[in-house]
């Protein structure tokens, strides 16, 4: 049974590449470009892992972690994509319960390794 990844990123370009690589890696990918949509999706189905950009319209990656951990009470692994120079955001993300983070520019190969590590745990 292939694992499901929720990819939340409003950068079409990066999302396309990651989507391509994740599918090649055998994952089922659900991609969304805005936080509101992501929340709606999570109400009904929980993926095996969430990969989210910090900067997103309507609901930031940070808010998303809070939503998953405290409202949905879910332990689904979350990997945060952060921009360089946003160390404070990364700390907040960890405090709220993010499992891992990756800094832009994102290497798809590295992200896949990190995803596999979280999913296998």
């Amino acid at each position, binding site marked *: 049974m292939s694992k499901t990844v929720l990819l939340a990123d*409003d*950068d*079409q*370009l*990066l999302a*396309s*590449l990651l989507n*391509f*690589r994740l599918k*090649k890696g055998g994952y089922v990918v659900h991609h969304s470009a805005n936080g509101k949509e992501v929340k709606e999706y999570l109400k009904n189905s929980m993926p095996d892992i969430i990969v989210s950009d910090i*900067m997103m319209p309507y609901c930031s990656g940070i808010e998303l972690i809070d939503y998953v951990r405290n409202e949905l009470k879910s332990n689904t692994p979350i990997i945060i994509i952060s*921009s360089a120079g946003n160390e404070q955001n990364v700390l907040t993300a960890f405090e709220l319960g993010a499992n891992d983070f990756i800094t*832009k*520019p*994102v*290497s*798809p*190969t590295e992200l896949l390794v990190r995803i596999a590590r979280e999913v296998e745990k």
Partner: protein
Amino acid sequence: MSISKTKDLLGQLAQLERTVSEFSFDELSADDAKILKGSFNTFRASLENHIYKPKKGAVVSHAIKASNDENQEISQKQFIAHISHEIRTPLNSIIGFANLLNDEKLTSGQHKKVDAIQFASNTLLKLINEVLDYSKISSGVSNFETVDFNLHSLLKDVMFLCETLIVDRKIELLVEIDDNVPKIIKGDPSKLSQVLLNLLGNSVKFVEQGFIKLEVFSKASYDNHCVLEFSVADTGIGIAKEKIDTIFKRYTQAEANTSSKYGGTGLGLTITKEIIEKLKGDIEIDSTIDSGTTVTFRLPYTIGKNIGFSKISKKPYKNLKGQHLLAGAEIMVFEDNQMNSLLIVEQLTKWGCKVHANVSLTEGLEILGSSNVDLILMDLKMPNQNGFEVSKIIRTHENNKIKSTPIVAFSADFTEKDSIECKTIGINDFLLKPYSLNDLMTTILKNKKSKVELEDFSSILQKPMIKPKETTVVDLNHLLKDCFGEIDMLNELVKLFKLNAIEFIGNVTIHLKTDNLKEIALSAHKLKAGFAMIKADGMRKLIVDIEASCKANKVEKVKELYEVFLIDYPVLEENLTAELTVMNKK
């Protein structure tokens, strides 16, 4: 769009309010106060007009009403000019997108759809230009120029454009130019093309089958003056006799339902007539319902100097496709005017040429001796040095290599005396300003010394002859690896990247108007990842600088950096496309 426009306006109003509150009204004289009061009332009236009556059909109904009231007429023209501009900005993105799409590998079905988008958006752009041009002409802003131009090549270009407008219809396109029509005439070439395109465009619109014929005669000529008669005849739907007078009125078409069937703003003929009248000509229409229309107009011209070089007009290279042939060519430019020099250097660099500009005669000769310059572009009328003299020195130089370098002269005017002098000195060819990019490229290609035989980009890329500007460098190899070597995926990503860049340009252009640095920073931030993916590190650094300058609230710095971006990005995109082309071939 409308919300941000309102915000834009509110922002400007707020700024005005601040200016007003800081203004010292005590120092105002009685007369000044009167003028101020007058313009305030006009402003209020126009604002109320827009706010309370902007509903559908605003443009047309305003136009008719406005003719009664001078003040309203002025504000209405400004309104037209303003909305036209606002519409043009996103429309340019649409056209840009469509052009990008057409560069991609598409199925023939997809190509047809993109063609349809291009056609529709170009039509829309033309309509808007029409509206804009009309308000410019009637408010006296439009400029008319007087230059020597080749009438025959203008007619050829116009007919070519007209041909592209005929889609899937069996219409014959005929041209007849009488032998006594001079080749070079002095006047406004762009206005003549506009008039001809308007009339031919109308014919294309209204002819279902049959022919469209353009005829040109010289009606009268004395000394170096002549009156040229142009007639555009078609086998279209025709116009009823009683309607002929009214169709020259603004915003009217012969039948109320004409526009729904054939499109158009009803401005074409009005503009045409106004242009012709401003050029001291006249126009008449002869038409029979259901059998066709003939529009005839006459314009006075001065016969231009036939400048002796037959190469001035030539068949253009299709869509500047030959530009890669120029890559690697080494060109020296003698041009004193800084702006012109900058422009030509920019263009040549974009084509991949190595350019030596802003050199003194001594420096120039040194370079000519030591490197392999393929061609010299020489402005004949430089304020500080005489182009003829410089050419003479080059031609009589003892070093054979320097002596034999091809020289192309350019100048904004050119007399017979100049022509003879050029020939005597041994100048190879000539470009009349303003020249098109096509003219520039073909002239250089024709005359340059070494013929670089390059069938594709790969040989250029493998052996770069010039060190490209850091901000224009890309490298797709890394991304191709990330795509597991799948070229389709890479094509897709590059397409997305280009779209992001266009969106960025659109966003920044809009937000710079209101100095909204926060939005610009956000847009820049989003674009960073893309430049990282295509390894455009130089450009990525520029974007990072833009973002940082936004955050530091340095508006001027942002503007300055953005200018650089606007100049370098097209070059980068061209490099990107070239590299992708090579990868697709492999």
